[in-house]
């Protein structure tokens, strides 16, 4: 903008030649400011009389802060290389290593605090205080400039003259479209995965869990195991007790089968009776004679809300609480959601006992486990 370079001086002030070697720094600065439309309207040294006690005090403070910075930094390095940082092993409970990280943080923080305050005090207390005023220019470009830019663009457009070349226009559209499509198709296509196409056996992953005999166990019912792969007998769960069990298939206890964990509950007689009476309310659970085995019932642990393990079992009220958003399921009523955001029951797993007396899943879940989705079968 040409206004910035103007050398004409208003108000009769003398034009200043910044290359004049006799000028002081201040005079040159002010000439620069004038050209940038800045004016220092107030300029006040912090200590008009140099060398006062007050000024010395501030100087000492800055020096002290810098010293603090250096000392703390040295302490940091010393602690860092000290044996504190390299024990053989870590246990719970207090040991020397517990001091290592806090000391590092403290010394580093102190050191940075020192330099930060030193800079701040130097700037705020020793450098002159000023009030400067700079003009803004709120108007847009001048009509001339706008017209010139518009005309230039117009001319460039006319140089292409695409309007007069319908063939190129059409081809360009098509080419652009094609390239654009390619640019989308490639990354999306690379990621894209059909959600319902599973293993070669054609099992829909959203409908199949580790309890599926056909998919994972050569058609034999899958045993229930603990996390350490030991199978479970009914006697292992005391009345009123519960246990998290996994399918006894390869990787069944790992995140490989993240939708398979099941909560096995041994109900008290009266609760079991209540549940049996309620089975018909949710027909899926009553299929071929009911999914319970004696007083045992197994529900999917995967919350139907967003998939957290619904794992807090309240014996007194027979409620299962999901800690993520506090949905509560009533065990004695087919795990019906009775509070919170979950809208669907926890699926029940049909269980039984095999010839060796171990608990098994008679078949996979009859419904899709876990959170809902658009095309989820409503069964």
């Amino acid at each position: 903008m040409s206004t910035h370079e103007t050398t004409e001086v208003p108000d009769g002030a003398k034009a200043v030649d910044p290359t004049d070697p006799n000028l002081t720094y201040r005079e040159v600065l002010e000439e620069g400011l004038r050209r940038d439309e800045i004016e220092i309207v107030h300029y006040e040294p912090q200590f008009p009389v140099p060398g006062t006690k007050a000024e010395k005090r501030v100087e000492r403070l800055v020096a002290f802060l810098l010293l603090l910075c250096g000392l703390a930094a040295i302490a940091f390095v010393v602690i860092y290389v000290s044996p504190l940082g390299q024990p053989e092993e870590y246990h719970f409970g207090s040991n020397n290593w517990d001091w290592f990280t806090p000391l590092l943080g403290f010394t580093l923080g102190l050191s940075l605090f020192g330099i930060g305050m030193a800079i701040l005090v130097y700037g705020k207390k020793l450098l002159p205080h000023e009030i400067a005023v700079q003009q803004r220019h709120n108007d847009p470009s001048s009509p001339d400039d706008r017209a010139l830019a518009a005309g230039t663009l117009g001319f460039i457009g006319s140089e292409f003259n695409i309007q007069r070349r319908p063939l190129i226009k059409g081809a360009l559209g098509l080419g652009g479209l094609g390239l654009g499509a390619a640019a989308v198709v490639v990354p999306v296509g690379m990621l894209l995965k059909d959600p319902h196409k599973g293993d070669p056996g054609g099992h829909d992953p959203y409908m199949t869990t580790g309890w599926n005999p056909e998919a994972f166990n050569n058609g034999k019912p899958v045993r229930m195991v603990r996390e350490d792969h030991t199978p479970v007998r009914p006697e292992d769960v005391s009345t009123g007790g519960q246990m998290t069990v996994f399918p006894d298939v390869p990787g069944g206890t790992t995140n490989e089968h993240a939708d398979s964990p099941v909560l096995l509950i041994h109900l008290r007689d009266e609760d079991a009776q209540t549940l049996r009476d309620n089975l018909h309310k949710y027909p899926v659970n009553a299929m071929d004679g009911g999914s319970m085995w004696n007083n045992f019932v197994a529900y999917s642990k995967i919350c139907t809300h967003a998939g957290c393990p619904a794992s807090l079992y309240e014996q007194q009220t027979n409620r299962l609480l999901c800690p993520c958003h506090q949905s509560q399921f009533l065990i004695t009523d087919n795990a019906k959601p009775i509070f919170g955001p979950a809208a669907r029951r926890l699926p029940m797993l049909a269980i039984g006992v095999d010839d060796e007396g171990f608990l098994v899943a008679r078949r996979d879940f009859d419904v899709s486990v876990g959170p809902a989705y658009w095309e989820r079968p409503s069964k």
Partner: protein
Amino acid sequence: MKRRKVDLKALPGATANAVDERFKVARPLRGILNKVFPDHWSFLLGEIALFSFIVLLLTGTFMALFFDPSMTEVKYDGSYTPLRGQEMSHAYASSLDLSFDVRGGLVVRQMHHWAALLFVAAIIVHMFRIFFTGAYRKPRETNWIIGLLLFWLAFLEGFAGYSLPDDALSGTGLRIATGIMLSIPVIGTWVTSSLFGGEFPGHVILDRLYIVHVFLIPLVLLALITIHITLVFIQKHTQWPGPGRTNSNVVGERFFPRYVMKQAGFFMLVFAVIAAMGGLFQINPIWLFGPYRAAVVSAGSQPDWYVMFLDGSTRLMPAWELTFSIAGHQYMIPGIFWPTVVLPGILTVLPMAWPFIEARKNKDKSIHNLAQRPRDVPQRTALGAMAVSFYIVLLISGGNDIIADKFHISLNAMTWAGRIGLLVIPPLAYYITHRIALGLQQHDREVLAHGVETGIIKRLPNGAFVEIHQPLAPVDDHGHPEELPYVNWTVPKKMNRLGALGPAIRGFFKPIEVPVKPQLPPAPEKEREKTSV
């Protein structure tokens, strides 16, 4: 020999000339050195965000040298004994190594986490400052929109980072994220399976999130922050109204040296706070949570604080599942779709449109460089308070189980309080804020008209009492002050703001000086003459 000796005194000048001959920088340099910046504490909020971002880049780059996002299982044999021999992913194991076996790794890890929390907090408070002072108005709408994008990017970046160590909390967070993705109508399962490379958790999600966290989002953040700050430079910062300050000037200090020193010092202080927190306050002790297992979660598992408002909205949502059939097929929209996909959508689009909505409502096309005091725009301020209170109810609900546990309140009562509060509190906040803003304005006007209260009560001959005011303007012939115009800026309300003496006794909470004892009765005439000088 002598002739070749370098003239040290001429060296800087010679170098400067050499540089200018090549890059022609003398004039832009002068412009930057002299640029005037207005100063106010509330303008530093954006800086806190910027500085914590720099700390994030520094600490994050260090950690990237040691972290391994692979989800392949290994047996842990590092030096943290309680977990030795356990199966876990490389990601979790390398996070443990970073905490225990890399010297000083834990400080850096914790600094990174604290910096992330501070980053988002600073962004949010900064955004409030921009909103309540109207700094988003023309010509700064673009920066407002960029700012909102920055907020959501910071949110995603934080979430991605939180997921990386593959501890119990990361996994739980990711699992909920799948639940949210699955709820998107029509494409939910496709999106989820594509991102996870199959069913949750699959084998690739951490590798993908790693690239997102250390490359993609930081790159975009860096680019947008650069544009954001360049725009502040070009458009010049807003300033508060006040003596000599107009819509077409900037009153402040030159960029160099004092303003820059303040910035540099402030950066060091922010850095210092993060370093001290990183050392002294434990955060995300992943070794206590254990590796992620789909069947395990502990009560009171919390996301990072900035995710809590969405956790809260999810908790408060009633169990509404929409099912309907199209062409004989049953379809459904799960309830979680509304609080976690639709709500954030609204929270993005509505604020983005706000500058334009407001300008349109006020038929306002002018340029605004003066910030507004919240009280001077009661409607906007009240709307803002409404939004803030909505946000706070959600935030509190995100930790309602912790509150219920600590204060022995029923969890269900907390949820219901949140549901009702979400509907009742924001309108109430609107009403109250509106009244407060008008009240403050009114008081300013009174002071301008009648003057400052002096605390002096005068008794008139007829027995009535009047309070004496110190007029701010010259008085007319009848002794009445002229009424001063309202200029949307601070009005002095205390006598010592007008140069009257400050309180005689120092000390804020309790006096530092002993108050003067009650005086003895005046000495007789003669003595008095002796003592007075």
